[in-house]
């Protein structure tokens, strides 16, 4: 949706109960009155003030409404799990209750992500999409690079399993589905393959690009990553370090995303 001057202005207009949908991009911050109309139900991110008349925002974000339900969606918040989400997990602690451990093993195994590296971005930058497994095809490293976008903001970037790869690996078993139909030995193997330097370079470049976009709050998509990688190749950056200089970063954002003002 385009943002025109009106929507960006600080002027605050109250929600009109008759009008629906048009103000969905309205921005509020905590303590601001979202509406005083009685017919609204209040949803997440809102609060009834002391007088009991006004619906007040409790987070900074956009006002959203579905019929009579008004809620404020925070621009930045912790990951809220939903059914069907694909997440990338990281083991930080083991609880040594035997039955727990056994049950978890039915669904997950440690070390089932391999041949790559983990990178973490704010969860709000990853949208729920049809697929969260991307393969960036071979110009991006000799075997391509696989990317698993966890909705929780954890991203696994690893060696591609496309046609160029020398091992026939089960591809989509990594995240957390049941292992039916996949080769368990390979999916749950925790042995890394030998990864040639160009592939390593490609993997770390993809990670660096992801972090660059994350710093500027740009949501990640397959095409964005691909075109950014292409841009790096095009500009002859293949042999240089993966972390871009400030100037190159600016150029990348300007040419790929269209952000001109990046001074923060």
């Amino acid at each position, binding site marked *: 949706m385009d943002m025109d001057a009106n929507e960006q202005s600080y002027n605050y207009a109250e929600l009109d109960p008759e009008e629906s949908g048009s103000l969905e991009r309205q921005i509020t911050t905590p303590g601001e009155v979202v509406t005083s109309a009685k017919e609204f139900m209040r949803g997440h991110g809102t609060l009834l003030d002391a007088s009991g008349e006004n619906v*007040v925002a*409790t987070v900074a974000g956009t006002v959203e409404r579905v019929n009579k339900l008004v809620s404020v969606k925070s621009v930045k918040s912790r990951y809220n799990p939903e059914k069907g989400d694909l997440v990338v997990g990281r083991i930080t602690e083991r609880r040594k209750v035997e039955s727990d451990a056994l049950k978890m093993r039915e669904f997950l195994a440690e070390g089932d992500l391999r041949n790559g590296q983990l990178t973490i971005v704010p969860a709000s930058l990853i949208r729920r999409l049809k697929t969260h497994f991307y393969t960036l095809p071979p110009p991006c490293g000799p075997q391509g690079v696989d990317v698993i976008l966890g909705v929780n903001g954890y991203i696994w970037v690893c060696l591609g399993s496309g046609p160029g790869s020398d091992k026939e690996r089960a591809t989509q078993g990594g995240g957390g589905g049941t292992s039916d139909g996949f080769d368990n030995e390979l999916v749950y193997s925790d042995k890394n393959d030998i990864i040639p330097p160009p592939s390593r370079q490609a993997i770390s470049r993809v990670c660096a690009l992801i972090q660059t976009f994350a710093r500027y709050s740009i949501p990640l*998509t397959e095409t964005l990553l691909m075109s950014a990688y292409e841009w790096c190749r095009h500009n002859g950056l293949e042999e240089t370090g993966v972390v871009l200089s400030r100037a190159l970063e600016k150029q990348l954002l300007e040419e790929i995303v269209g952000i001109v003002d990046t001074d923060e």
Partner: protein
Amino acid sequence: MTFTPQANADGSATMQQGLSTVSATVFGPREPRAQSRGMLLHDRAFLSVEVGEAAWAQQGGSKRSRGDKRLTEVAAAIRDTFEPVVMLQLYPRTEISVYIQVLGSDGGILSTAINATTLALIDAGVAMADYITSLSIGLHLTQPLLDLSGPEESDIPHLVVACLPATGKITLATLETRIHVDRFEDMLDVGVEGCRVLHAEMQAEVRQRTTTIVERMQMGQGTTAAVTA
């Protein structure tokens, strides 16, 4: 007043008032760390606040360590100030940690820290009923003075006020020296007025940042089609 993106934090902000600079970093709501698991509450989140001071923060280089009594007091005051305003009941069984670093110390550390914490909590997307803004008010003869510097603070009686600007409710008023009761009301009024001004400034900053992020989120979306074409 800046939002300083810190890689691993959920929210962070740096506030500068005069020569005092304080940065606040918020983690959470998250599962309580092992050392604070005992404080876990079943029906709401708990706030933990830690205050540290950089070695160079004060003139003369007298270093205060983390266990310093004054800093602990500041931490306790911040926790008590935010507890009623942050909507803790929304995040049961979690911890919200606020880490405060005093980078430059020239009076009004408590109020600068409170303002920085407000911004950092908003940045982290933690639900709050309102902003909390804070100022120190001094008294020279009969004249109330706003936002004292370090030397002023040590010489004249002063009051630290934190309030919710929308309702004018006061969540914190601390006085370390004695003043005449007749002067107190004047000082409080001036302080609340000052807090309102501060609120307007902070609100504008938060809005601007939120607008930028919303725009960015849409930008990425809109241009992907154009790039592939």
